[in-house]
C-alpha cells in the first residue's frame, strides 16, 4: 500500500502542533489587547459635543473651579452637568452674540435642554458615587485626567474594573490631601506611598469594604 502522506508531512504536523500554541497565545494576546484598547474602552477618544465646550479654556485659562458647574460633586453620587442657566450666567454678557454659542442661547430661549454626549460612561450595574471619593481625598484628575488641558473632553482612564480595583486595593497609591482634590495642577509628591498611608488612616478609609462586591454592584 502506498503511503498517503509524504515524509515531510511529519515535520509539517509537528510544526503545526507546536505552532498552534503560539497561534493560541497570540489570539489570547490580541483579544486581551483589543479589550484593553481604546477602541473598546474609548479612553482618550475626544467626543464631539453639541457645543464645542473647552475645559482647557474655562478651567486652564480662566481658572473656574470644577464645582462652579459640577455643583453636586461633593454631596451626591452624580457630579452634575450644569444647566443651561449656568452657561448663561456669563454668556449673557460675554460672547453674547457668538455664533458658536447659539445652541446654548437656543436652549435657554426654548427651555429645551442641551443634549451632551456622555464621556465617562460606567455600565449600568456599577454604582459610582462622586461625593465619597472627593470627600476622601481622591482628586478629580486622578480619574478624569488633566481636564484643564483638554480642549474637547475625552475619557482619561479605561474605566474597567481592574482600573477601579487598582485604587480600591491600594488607595495609598493615589490619595491626596483633601484640600488638593480640586487642584488640577497637583503633582504627586515623591513620598506618595508614605503620605498615602498616613492619609488613608487619617481619612479613616474602610479598606475591608472597598473591595466588597456590594460596594459598587447592587
Amino acid at each position, binding site marked *: 500500500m502506498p503511503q498517503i502522506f509524504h515524509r515531510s508531512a511529519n515535520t509539517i504536523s509537528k510544526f503545526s502542533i507546536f505552532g498552534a500554541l503560539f497561534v493560541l497565545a497570540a489570539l489570547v494576546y490580541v483579544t486581551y489587547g483589543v479589550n484593553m484598547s481604546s477602541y*473598546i474602552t*474609548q479612553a482618550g477618544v475626544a467626543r464631539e459635543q453639541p457645543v464645542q465646550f473647552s475645559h482647557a479654556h474655562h478651567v486652564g485659562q480662566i481658572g473656574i473651579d470644577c464645582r462652579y458647574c459640577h455643583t453636586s460633586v461633593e454631596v451626591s453620587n452624580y457630579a452634575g452637568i450644569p444647566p*443651561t442657566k449656568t452657561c448663561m450666567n456669563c454668556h449673557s454678557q460675554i460672547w453674547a452674540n457668538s455664533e458658536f454659542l447659539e445652541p446654548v442661547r437656543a436652549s435657554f430661549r426654548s427651555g429645551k435642554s442641551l443634549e451632551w454626549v*456622555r464621556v465617562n460612561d460606567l455600565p449600568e450595574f456599577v454604582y459610582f458615587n462622586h461625593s465619597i471619593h472627593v470627600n476622601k481625598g481622591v482628586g478629580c484628575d486622578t480619574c478624569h485626567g488633566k481636564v484643564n488641558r483638554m480642549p474637547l473632553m475625552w475619557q482619561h482612564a479605561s474605566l474597567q474594573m481592574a482600573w477601579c480595583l487598582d485604587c480600591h486595593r491600594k488607595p495609598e497609591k493615589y490619595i491626596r490631601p483633601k484640600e488638593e482634590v480640586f487642584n488640577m495642577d497637583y503633582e504627586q509628591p515623591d513620598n506618595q506611598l508614605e503620605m498615602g498611608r498616613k492619609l488613608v488612616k487619617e481619612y479613616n478609609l*474602610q479598606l*475591608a469594604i472597598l473591595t466588597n*462586591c*456590594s460596594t459598587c454592584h*447592587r
Partner: protein
Amino acid sequence: MSHIVDQIKERLKARSGKEYWRSLEELADTPEFQEMLHREFPEGASEWGDGFSRRGFLKLMGASLALAGATACTRQPAEKIVPYVRQPEEIIPGRPLYFAGAATLGGYATGVLVESHMGRPTKIEGNPDHPASLGATDIFAQASVLEMYDPDRSQALTYLGNISSWAAFLARLNECMIVHRKYPTPGDGLRILTESVTSPTLAAQLQEILTALPGAKWHQWEPVNRDNVLAGARMAFGEPVSTHYNFRNADIIVSLDSDFLNYGPGTVRYARDFAARRKVEGGKMNRLYTIESTTTNTGAMADHRFARKAGEIGGIAQALLNAVRGTSTGIEKWIAVIAKDLAANPGAGIVIAGDHQPAEVHAAAHAINELLGNAGKTVFYTDPVEADPSARLQSLRLLVDDMNRSQVETLIILGGNPVYNAPSDLKFAEALSRVGTRMHVGLYDDETSYLCHWHIPQAHALESWSDARAYDGTVTLIQPLIAPLYGGKTFHEILAAMMGSDRSGYTIVQDYWKKLHPENFDHFWRKSLHDGLVEGSAFPPKTVTAKADLPPAATGSGEGLEIQFRPDPTIYDGRYSNLGWLQELPKPMTKITWDNTVLVSPMTAKRFALSAEDVVELNYKGRKVTGPIWILAGQPDDSITVHFGYGRTRAGRVGTGAGFNAYSLQTAGAPCYDSGLELRKTGSKYQLASTQMHQMMEGRHLVRSAELDEYLQHPDFAREVEETPADDMTMYPPYKHDGYAWGMTIDLNACVGCNACVVACVSENNIAVVGKDQVRRGREMHWIRVDRYFKGELEDPEIYHQPVPCMQCENAPCEVVCPVNATTHSAEGLNDMVYNRCIGTRYCSNNCPYKVRRFNFFLYSDLQSPSLKLQRNPDVTVRTRGVMEKCTYCVQRINHARIEAEKENRTVRDGEITTACQQVCPAEAIVFGNIHDPESRVSLLKKEERNYGLLADLNTRPRTTYMANLKNPNPELKEG
C-alpha cells in the same frame, strides 16, 4: 380513596402533641406532596419547556461558545446627558426628595412620604408624623405608585369610544349645565355619583353645587362601605358618629368578626398599637379574642379564636352584652368568660365589630364599651369623618330608582366602577342606559366608562392637588409629585368646570383653606404641606350616650349554606385588579395568587366531596357563578366566603379575566352575607397558583411559640428546641468583621401577616412580576415571603405568620458553591449577590436551606413599557434573564447611609438605616441594625431569650433571627 379530610384526621390522631403545618396536602402526606418536597423548584420550574433534540442542543451550544468571546468586544453605545435648562433649587441630581401626601382607601387617608427622583415618584413610605401611619403603610399605599405608572391607565379623553378633547367635553358639559339651570328647580335631572368623600375641599365644592342647583343630587357608592358601622352608631347614639380605637391602652380586645388588623380606616395605626402591646412588659401582654366568620389575619393573632358563621355573630354579640349587663343567665361558658375578662379590665378593653356585621352588632359593641367604661379611654367618638355619612347602598338605590324612572338626564360619575361593583339585583348597567348624558371620570377605561358617553382620564393622587381626612379626622393636604402623565383631571377641576370655572386643582384647594386660615396663610400652607397634616385638624372626642333599649341582634342563621362577601385581601374591591404587584401577592391565608376562590371549611368540603381546585357552581337566589374551591382550615362549617375584585372584563392587561365575579351574586338586600346558598360540583378542575407549598423547609422547628405562662417560667423555650453548634464547629476560618455587622430580627409575636413588607420590597428593589403560569411553576420572585403555618386541629387551628427574607448566613451554603464568585461574603457580613457575574447555574439556590434565592427563568422585568421605566428605583439594578437574585438587606440603603456617615467622619447611627420591609411594617416586627454595637436595638433584641435562629442547627449562623411567638390564652378557657 377516602377524602383528604379523613386522611388528615387519622394522621392527626396518630401524632402526639400539636404540630405546625402549611397545607392540607402536607398534613395528609400525599404522594404529590412528597414529590413536591423533594424538588428544589416545583415540577417544571427548572425544565426547558421546548422539545430540544440532542443534536440541536449541541449545535446551539457550539455556536454560543464561538460567539461568547465576540460579545465581550462590544462597546457601550453612546449615551446622552440631558441637564436642566434652569435647575430647580432643591433638586440635587442623584439624591431623592421626599414629599408629604396621603394615600386614600375608601376615602380615608393614610399619611405618606413619597420618594421622588428628579420628578419621578418611585416609592411610598409612611409619614412618621401622621397619626394613621406613624411611618408605616398598607399594601395598597405601597402599590399606588405602580397604579400611577400603570401603562393600562386610560390615556385619552373619549367620547363614544373615540378620542376627543377637553374643550369638546367642556362644551358638552356646559350645554348640559345650561339645560339643568333653566329648569324650574335648577339642577333637576343632574346627578353626581362619587365614592366616599372625606376631602373637605371636595365636600365644599359639592355643597356649592347643591346650593346653586337645588334640584341636583349627590350620590355616593362604595362597594366596601361602612354603612353598617354608621347605622350601628345611629342606632346606639342617635347620630352617625365615627368611632376610633386606642389599642395601645387595651388589655382585652374582643373582635366580633372585625379584621381590624387588615382593613378599614386606621388599620395601620391599629396594627402598630396592637403589636406594641404584644410585647411582654411586667409579665403582661394584651389578650385578643376573635370571633370570626372566615380565617383572617386578626384571627391569626388571636389568643382565642372562635370560628362562627357570620349570621351567628349577632347572637354572640347579644349574649356578650347580656353577660356584661349581668341580666341574663344561660349564657354559653366561653362568652361568660370573655365577659368576665372584659369586666375585670374596665376602661382597658375594646369590643370592636366587623364592618359587614349588621348595625345591631355594632350597637351592642358600643353598649358594651360604654358599660365597661372603655368609651373615652380606649374607644373614642367623633363627628363623622366622611363628608356625608348617609348609607352608600341606599344612596345608590335611590339613584338607580331615579334612573329607571328616567329622571336622570345627566350623570357625572366621579371615580368608582358601579357597573362592575354594584349589587347585581340593582341592575345598574340597565338603569344607566336610561340616562341621557353619562360622563365618567376615572383612572381606567373600565366597565363603567364603556357604558358612558364621555370618559375623562382622572389624575392620580400622585398627580393632583387635593385633601383628605384620616380615621381620626386629621386632614392631609395632597400635593402632586408629577404633572398628570396622561392629561388627567381631578374631581375638583371637573366640579369647578360644572360651575363654569376653569380654576386649577391647586387654586381650588388653596382657596378653600385660605377661607379657613386667612391670617398668615402662606405659613399655614407651607407648614401643612411640609408636615403632611393640618395641625389640630383631628376631630375632638365627643361624649355620646348609648340608648338603653337597643334592638337585639338577630340570633342564629338561616337554613342551608351561608355565603359571605368580602373584599379581596390583595386587590380589595377590584380597583387594584390591574396591579401586578398586588395580583401576585399571595393572599395571607390561602397563599393564592392571581385568583379568587370559593373558601370552604374542611368539613364542608368533605360533606360535598370537594377537593381543592374543584370547580363548583354557586347558586344564590337564582344567581349563578362558578369558581374553584379552596379548603381553608379555620373557616366555619357551612359558611362559604367569596372575595370581590375578580372577574373583571375591562380591567387592563393584568386584571382582565382573572377569577370570577362575586358581585354577580351579591344583592342589595343582603350585601354582606346571607344564607340559602346552593353549591353544586361541576366536575371540572381549575388550576390555582398557590405558593403555600413553595420554598418549603419541611419538618423542622421553624415557628416557635409558647403561652405566656410557659414563657415566664421558661424564657429560654425557643432555644431549647434544638442545638446550635458551637462557634468553632466549622471548616472555614471565621470572618473578621471590624466595622459594621448587619443583622435583623423579626418578631413573630408582632407580625400581623399583612404582607406590606413584600410589596415594599418589590417596590424598593425593582422586583419583577412573573404572572400566574410562572407562579404555578414556583418561579415567583419575591425576596421576602410570608410563610403561614397552621398548628393543631383542622377546625380550630392556631395560625402563625413568618416573614422569611435572606438570612445573610455567616456560614453561607450558597457562597461556597458558586463557580464564578457571583455571591460572596462582604466584610459587613452580607451575602452579596453580583448580578453581572452570575451565569445562572442555580447551585446557590439548590444549596440554600431557606429557599430565599430567586432565579430569572425568563426576562421578567418589563423593559418595554416606558412608564414603568420611570417607576424603578435608580439605585437598584434591574435584573435580566438568567440571573439569580435575592434579598440584600437593601444594600443600596446601607451604602447610602454609610457614605453619608463617612463624609461626616462618624459611624452610622442606630436606626439610620431602615430596610424597606422594616420601614413599612405597621407592627414594627422587623428591626435592622449593627450587631457589633451592643447598644443597638437589634443587638438588644438578639440578647432576648425569645430570639432564635432558623435552622440554626445547620450551622449556617443566620444574621436574620426570629423572636418566638407568644400566646396569652385565658386560663379559664383552656381545655382540661
